[in-house]
């Protein structure tokens, strides 16, 4: 049930309504700022530098030369208003600066002032503004109210993607010394230890052994969770939340059972024990590349033939869309398989081939729906055909259970709503934003709960799982109503002991 909170939890809207603007309701200081040592670990100034204005404008100029997206998107918006009611944070907060176009305009007004003739000559006319401290503060606040989910880009007639603008803004903010604590304290942990949680190898080994014992108790079968096994065929790169958080961990158990039943030789790497890549959230190509490079290095060191990604939304974006760009080519891997491959692609393929058998009745106590994670839905693909990222997880779920119901069509697939915690916003100091941003997803969930008795929502993203576990209770749902897709697989899979183990 609803907890005691300092803010109003949005009420479900009985029918679609036109959002009423409440200017300034989400104005504030933004999330906690990163401490100087963490900033410096990423190569950014520790705190706001004295000549921040000039440095910021120079950085903007540099980014305009590096990113066509930025250049085209800043010039091309005709203020048609198509995006104004599409953002989940706008819907949940009604703050007009959470309209995608208004969020972009915080950036665009400065671009116009410094990089366009019309903005230099007639600033008032074209809405150009100098980069004052107030504007900079607005950047910090409102560009940390964007989860980079790309829903606006689906609806924009020009394809303007606010995520590109918010990434650029965050990179400029970092460059002048204004970093966000949550993201910028996590990334150095990867460089130091190998994962976002700062889980060192002995602790990781211990956790995996514990899970092996749990699975032995549950199934009576020796199912392995190998760590740093040189010469394994498959390197599993999964979000570190899978090692300890609920419901993530049951997903990890699901992957292990699938690998076991397929007789696959696989391993986790302690060096690259993280699929998540927060370098993307802060818009830093350099940091994103540095995080991704560990995956390449681990693959070389462990002499694997394939790389498979676990359930994680933006990690799959970096994996599918960027990995080859950032740290490719992967000529040393087995090119008969996609590089990298998603665990859902892998499992689906095994189901198709009849290699793994699933007992649907094992999930008869659950009635399911599926939450398309934003980055998987709108920034990646699975399988050979466009839209495979929607079909493959659904086909897996349907193969695992007897009761599956989709949510409203305009809230799923490429129109899916972000969980409310993506893009580096999954931090307790943004709890109000996270709860409010979850509103449209919660409404859609409520409808299938009421209409079809849905009990669980499955997802394939570590952030979605953590976010929903936290916000579901605010809206009157059970916190364990969110589960991993591979938990369903793990529960339904028919395990045998006489699996052909690779030599």
């Amino acid at each position, binding site marked *: 049930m609803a907890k005691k909170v300092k803010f109003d939890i949005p009420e479900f809207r009985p029918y679609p309504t036109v959002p009423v603007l409440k200017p300034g309701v989400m104005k504030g200081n933004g999330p906690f700022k990163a401490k100087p040592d963490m900033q410096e670990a990423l190569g950014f100034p520790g705190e706001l530098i004295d000549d921040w204005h000039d440095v910021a404008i120079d950085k903007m100029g540099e980014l305009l030369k590096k990113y066509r*997206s930025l250049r085209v998107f800043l010039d091309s918006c005709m203020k048609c208003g198509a995006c104004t009611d599409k953002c989940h944070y706008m819907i949940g907060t009604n703050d007009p600066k959470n309209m995608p176009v208004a969020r972009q305009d915080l950036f665009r007004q400065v671009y116009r002032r410094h990089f366009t003739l019309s903005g230099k000559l007639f600033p008032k*006319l*074209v809405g150009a503004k100098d980069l004052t401290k107030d504007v900079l503060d607005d950047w910090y606040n409102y560009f940390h109210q964007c989860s980079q989910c790309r829903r606006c880009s689906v609806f924009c*007639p020009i394809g303007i993607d606010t995520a590109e603008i918010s990434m650029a803004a965050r990179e400029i903010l970092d460059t002048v010394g204004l970093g966000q604590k949550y993201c910028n304290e996590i990334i150095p942990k990867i460089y130091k230890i190998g994962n976002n949680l700062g889980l060192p190898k002995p602790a990781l080994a211990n956790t995996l052994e514990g899970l092996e014992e749990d699975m032995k108790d549950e199934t009576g079968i020796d199912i392995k969770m190998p760590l740093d096994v040189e010469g394994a065929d498959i390197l599993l790169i999964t979000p570190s939340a899978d090692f300890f958080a609920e419901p993530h961990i049951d997903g990890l158990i699901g992957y292990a059972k699938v690998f076991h039943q397929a007789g696959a030789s696989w391993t986790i790497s302690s060096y690259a024990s993280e699929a998540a890549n927060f370098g993307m959230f802060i818009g830093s190509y*350099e940091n994103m590349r540095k995080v991704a490079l560990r995956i390449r290095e681990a693959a070389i060191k462990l002499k694997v033939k394939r790389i498979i990604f676990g359930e994680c939304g933006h990690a799959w974006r970096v994996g599918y*869309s960027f990995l080859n760009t950032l740290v490719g080519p992967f000529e040393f891997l087995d090119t008969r398989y996609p590089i990298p491959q998603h665990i859902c692609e892998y499992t689906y393929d095994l189901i198709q081939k009849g290699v793994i058998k699933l007992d649907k009745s094992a999930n008869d106590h659950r009635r399911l729906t599926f939450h398309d994670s934003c980055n998987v839905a709108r920034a990646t693909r699975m399988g050979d055909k466009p839209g495979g990222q929607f079909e493959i997880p659904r086909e897996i779920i349907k193969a695992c259970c007897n009761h599956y119901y989709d949510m409203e069509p305009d809230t799923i697939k490429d129109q899916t709503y972000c969980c409310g915690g993506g893009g580096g916003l999954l931090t307790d100091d943004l709890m109000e934003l996270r709860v409010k941003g979850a509103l449209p997803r919660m409404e859609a969930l409520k409808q299938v709960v009421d209409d079809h008795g849905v009990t669980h929502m499955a997802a394939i993203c570590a952030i979605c799982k953590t976010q929903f576990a936290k916000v579901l209770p605010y809206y009157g749902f059970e916190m364990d109503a969110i589960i991993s897709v591979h938990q369903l697989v793990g529960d339904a899979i028919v395990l045998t002991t006489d699996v052909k183990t690779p030599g």
Partner: protein
Amino acid sequence: MEFWTAFYAISFYVATLIFLVFGGHKVYQYAVTPAPLKIPTTPAPVTTSGVVVRLLLEVTIFKSLFRSNKWIWLFALIFHLALWIVLIRHLRYFIDPVWAIVALAQPFGKYGSFAMLFGLFALLARRMFVARICYISTPSDYLMLFLLLAIGISGTLISFVTHTDIIQFKAFMLSVLNFNFFNWQTIPTDTMLLVHLTAVILLMIVFPFSKLLHVPGVFFSPTRNQVDNPREKRHVAPWAVKEFETSPASTTSE
């Protein structure tokens, strides 16, 4: 040489030059700025021909806008389609002999101006009365609509009410296009015609410095024009290669 004839002839040259040079510069800028990462909004086409189809659907029937908001889509489509027909019809004043397609567009083009005006007024009304769109509008957004309305209204009035010596105007226009410097045919000086021409010249000048850049922009939008094949084909920007892949340190993270 009569003053107005020279004034409009020279303005026309200057406006065309500004339009081509600065507009061309923008297109060049878009073309040479790299898109370092694959960011098509998915599901996206997996082939180049698929991308061509995707872009065609965007620029002909405004597919994304249709999914987004039926009213904006309707008004925008009416305006843009009508504008095309009107523009094609107007070619008759710039070419001799007149092409068949232009002759064909004549009856539709004449009344197309009403559709264009309807679209513009509807878009203006949305901008003024829908709170969200009002919030995001700057004075230039209104001025752009007013400029287009000025063109549409004056043009419609010339066609249906005040009229002008259109034969003489065409003679003027052809002499301008033939670069008969200071030997231009005399321009008719009906007020509505001059208002019409002034607004058109202003629009051409404003084009490369305004949101009208959405016209070339949409073709360069990486979320719409990229092929979804990052696993199959490595895509990397020259600056990224230079920064990260040419130094000896590039193979390790340390």
